[in-house]
């Protein structure tokens, strides 16, 4: 396995969040301007991804979904190979066959990404069973959204994980949107973590726009999973600041709600907090911005230079 990026310092976490933001915004712009396939972004949710991934070790495995860029980049994925994948190029993590929707990177421990809402929940129990039965040390972190929590499989997975004592950190990124439908139209409860008690597992809701709070809650949850072998349901309360699928004019979004969440932008919050507390100087912040801009530009160049896959391989890797 490749060495994971360090997310140990607050400035590391800021840099990871900035990379995710810049990467996603660049792809959104490319989708609008050049017609590359649109992505499902998680702009506004970067603290949830970085906070949780920063609490994992290299032995731990991650399952994610169609909004996976934050999880992959926080884990150390190469933005160039990711962009190549999104554009359907040969040098993508999945040889261009996945596109943005189901990018797995086994070398990083990001396995079995599913774009079927809730699909990752159905697979996580089996991955955790392998970890347990084969005596591997890592736990399994499974990222899903409030939309997936409305699928029956969420309840089946939580129940089985509880009954079989599987080491899974269920991470519900409650971003208030289920494709084009607001969460308040689909569930009565404000929060998903309440389901944890019903299945006899630990659960908590944390401010998903505060990366330090997410990290602290995730560290605590991971410690409880390692100590007890039991699953834990952590909900990060956050907001998806862009539409379901790029490009999206968000005409259906309440402007007041969007403005209120923009005022709580997780990146702006962390940056101003670090600058105020002396954890970061203006010069360091500028240097980070410059590094991110260069990395994203290089990623785009790499992706655009990558060849298309050969149609002769249309039926490759179907059977083992």
């Amino acid at each position, binding site marked *: 396995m490749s060495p994971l990026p360090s997310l140990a310092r607050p400035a590391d976490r800021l840099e990871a969040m900035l990379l995710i933001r810049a990467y996603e915004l660049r792809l959104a712009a490319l989708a609008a301007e050049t017609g590359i396939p649109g992505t499902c972004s998680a702009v506004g949710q970067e603290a949830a991804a970085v906070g949780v991934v920063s609490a994992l070790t290299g032995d731990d495995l991650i399952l994610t979904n169609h909004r996976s860029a934050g999880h992959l980049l926080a884990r150390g994925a190469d933005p160039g190979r990711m962009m190549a994948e999104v554009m359907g190029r040969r040098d993508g993590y999945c040889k261009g066959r996945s596109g943005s929707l189901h990018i797995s990177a086994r070398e990083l421990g990001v396995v079995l990404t599913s774009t079927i809402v809730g699909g990752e929940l159905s697979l996580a129990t*089996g991955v955790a069973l392998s970890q347990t039965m084969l005596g591997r040390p890592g736990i399994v972190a499974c990222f899903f959204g409030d939309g997936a929590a409305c699928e029956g499989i969420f309840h089946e997975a939580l129940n089985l994980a509880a009954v079989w004592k599987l080491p899974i950190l269920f991470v519900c990124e409650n971003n208030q949107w289920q494709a084009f439908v607001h969460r308040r139209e689909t569930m009565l409860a404000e929060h998903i973590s309440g389901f944890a008690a019903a299945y006899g597992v630990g659960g908590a809701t944390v401010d998903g726009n505060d990366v330090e709070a997410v990290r602290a809650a995730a560290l605590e949850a991971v410690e409880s999973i390692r100590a007890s072998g039991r699953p834990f349901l952590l909900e990060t309360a956050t907001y998806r600041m862009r539409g379901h699928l790029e490009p999206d004019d968000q005409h259906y979004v309440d402007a007041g709600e969007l403005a209120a969440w923009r005022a709580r932008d997780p990146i702006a919050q962390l940056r101003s907090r670090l600058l105020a507390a002396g954890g970061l100087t203006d010069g360091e912040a500028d240097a980070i911005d410059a590094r991110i801009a260069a990395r994203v530009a290089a990623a785009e160049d790499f992706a655009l230079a990558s060849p298309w896959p050969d149609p002769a391989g249309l039926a490759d890797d*179907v059977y083992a």
Partner: protein
Amino acid sequence: MEQISIERAIGQALAEEMRRDARVLLLGEGVATKRPELVAEFGPARVRNTPLAEAIIAGTAVGAAATGLRPVIDLLFAPFLSYAMDALVNSAGKLRHLSGGQFEFPLVAIAMTGAGWGVGSQHNHNLEAWFAHAPGLKVVMPSTPADFKGLLKSAIRDDNPVLYFVDIGLLQQAGEVPAGESLVPLGRAAIARSGRDLSLVSYAKTVPVCLEAAARLAADGIEAEVIDLRSIKPLDLGTVLDSVRRTGRVVVVHEANRSFGVGAELAALVAEHAFDVLKARPLRLGGPDAPAAASIPLEQAYVPSVGAVCEAARSLLRCD
């Protein structure tokens, strides 16, 4: 050779493969309850009862298969597979290809189907064609105790997801099973009876129907060859075409409803590859395009009869 029932042949295959490979485990609705001898030998971690929740049983198997285990799941009745479709079709069938070959899914899903217990079409639905149509999956449907045992052993050793359909009507039938290690390869048909006048191509419970029809036809001097496909996917087209090239006539016989089924695929393949040798049009016999009813006479009438097979055969010979 030992005479054993199909039910016992399946139990022997499971025990032998679990003994051979510690990564093999059995999950499902009542598997530990019904197979205490396996629990006693292999322990409760490897023989697990599950909740009545097919989606998570299948998802767990798919996740486990991708990460080092070799699960066998018992989903009881084939129609229950509709709850398991996402994990089997969208994940196990697609994620190897979509991930650029990062994963393989060595798992077996066992399900019963077919007329015999008067349970109606929410328990009796021969839906093997659904899975044969799904890329990345294999499908077997044997007819003899030896093939049930040998194909289950091969399916467990295969690195791909295999649907293993058990015809309820055959379950208690006894037959000879070779002593000791005996594998039946996936994708190889058997010639159950040789003949020169026409080819009856079938699988599962309609193989004995075809054999009885062939015996009756022989009394009138008509020599029918009976081919037991055993595997539907991969399909042993070579054996079928070889037979048709010798006989010039083919009738495909199965219990599943005829429309858009395995028989349609076979008739098309024969027409594509052996049109020049056909002395008559290919025929298909199968159930009506209707759900199977529970009432025993209705259920039995759904299945192609010996008389119907004889009539189809005679109609082709009258074409000369």
